[in-house]
Every structure is written in C-alpha cells, then in structure tokens.
C-alpha cells in the first residue's frame, strides 16, 4: 500500500540553526500538509499546499517557516532559525483530492532543538 515517507526520523539541532524536514507524499495525491504535535498536546495544523502554492496556513506558520515542492515527488518544510519551542513531532500528510478523502500521514520527524 502506498505510504507517505518522512526523513529524517529524528533531527537534533541547535537553537538558531536552519532545518529542513523532508517528505515524499503518496504519488497520486494532490494536497499536501504539515502538522506538528508538541509532546502531550494535540496535533496542530501548520500549512496546506495545493497546485504549487500554499492554500492555507495557521498562525503558527510564521515567517520562520516555509514549504516547497522542489520536484515532482518531495515536499519540504524549512524552519529558518529554530527556537526551543519548535521542538515537536512534525507530520507530513497528503490526500488524494476533494471532499471525502482522508489525510494519510507519514511517521513523522522528531525535531529536538537544544
């Protein structure tokens, strides 16, 4: 069964450094998402991406964050200058199209900012 893959599974970085989290969505999916889950808290929406542009973003997704689909398969989340509070599990998700199609999640990248 096709799946969303994320790399790396764990990333440790120092405060102020840039990180890029990578995702390969399911190949025939058209909508792409990033979510995060801070330890013990709910899964929070960051951004959605469709047709090579951001379709919606949350207030968490400030100027420090950016997304890109550099080629036909990868979808990346960049955090320009990481803060301690960026430490979380970051989940990439994709869905096929339109109403009634569920999100399919990757296994996440655990980001630890020290």
């Amino acid at each position, binding site marked *: 069964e096709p799946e969303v893959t*994320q790399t790396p599974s764990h990333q440790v970085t120092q405060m102020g450094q840039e990180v890029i989290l990578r995702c390969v969505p399911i190949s025939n999916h058209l909508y792409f*998402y990033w979510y995060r889950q801070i330890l013990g808290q*709910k899964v929070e*929406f960051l951004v959605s991406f469709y047709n090579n542009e951001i379709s919606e973003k949350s207030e968490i997704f400030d100027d420090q964050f950016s997304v890109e689909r550099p080629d036909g398969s990868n979808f990346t989340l960049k955090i320009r200058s990481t803060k301690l509070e960026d430490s979380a599990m970051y*989940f990439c998700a994709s869905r096929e199209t339109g*109403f009634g199609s*569920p999100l399919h999640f990757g296994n996440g990248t655990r980001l630890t900012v020290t």
Partner: protein
Amino acid sequence: DQQVKQNSPSLSVQEGRISILNCDYTNSMFDYFLWYKKYPAEGPTFLISISSIKDKNEDGRFTVFLNKSAKHLSLHIVPSQPGDSAVYFCAASYNQFYFGTGTSLTVIP
C-alpha cells in the same frame, strides 16, 4: 480555539467488550469527520470516516456515529482486541482538518 474535543484522555476495556470513544465539536461548518489511530513512534493511521449527510458508517469492527444536533461523534469498536490499544484521534474538516487531543485506549487481555 479547541473546536474538536476529546474529553476522556484514557479508556480501559476488557478484550471482547465494546470500546466507545467520544468526540465533541463546536463548529457546525464541519462536513467530514474522521477517526485516526496512533501507535507510539508512528504517524496517525486513518481508520474510518463519515460525511455530515450520514449518521452512521460501519467498517468491520469499527462503527462511527454522528449526532449533528448534539455535535457529537463516537467510535465503537466491537469486539475490542489487545492490538487495538493505541491513541485514537477524532478529526473534523471543512477547509482544513482539526484534531482532538486523543484518547488512549488500553484493551486488557
């Protein structure tokens, strides 16, 4: 702005019995509802969904019920199995997906 709420952080059930997980929402614009299951160190896995035009959807041991007037969603698992032990998230959608905080289900053999 907690639009989707799961008020029970944990639930324990004996193997073979019914597990009932509950979810409440506040936004009447939601038109699609889902349940996800999550094991440690894995991403959420889609289980079952229901659109707002229905009140019940069944898939094997899993049934989702929607009560729009009460803005309430529930997931029934019958019979419960030890492998069902996981964190269950409900989610609701109209433009984007909103998730509850999860209920940790433990099925006791």
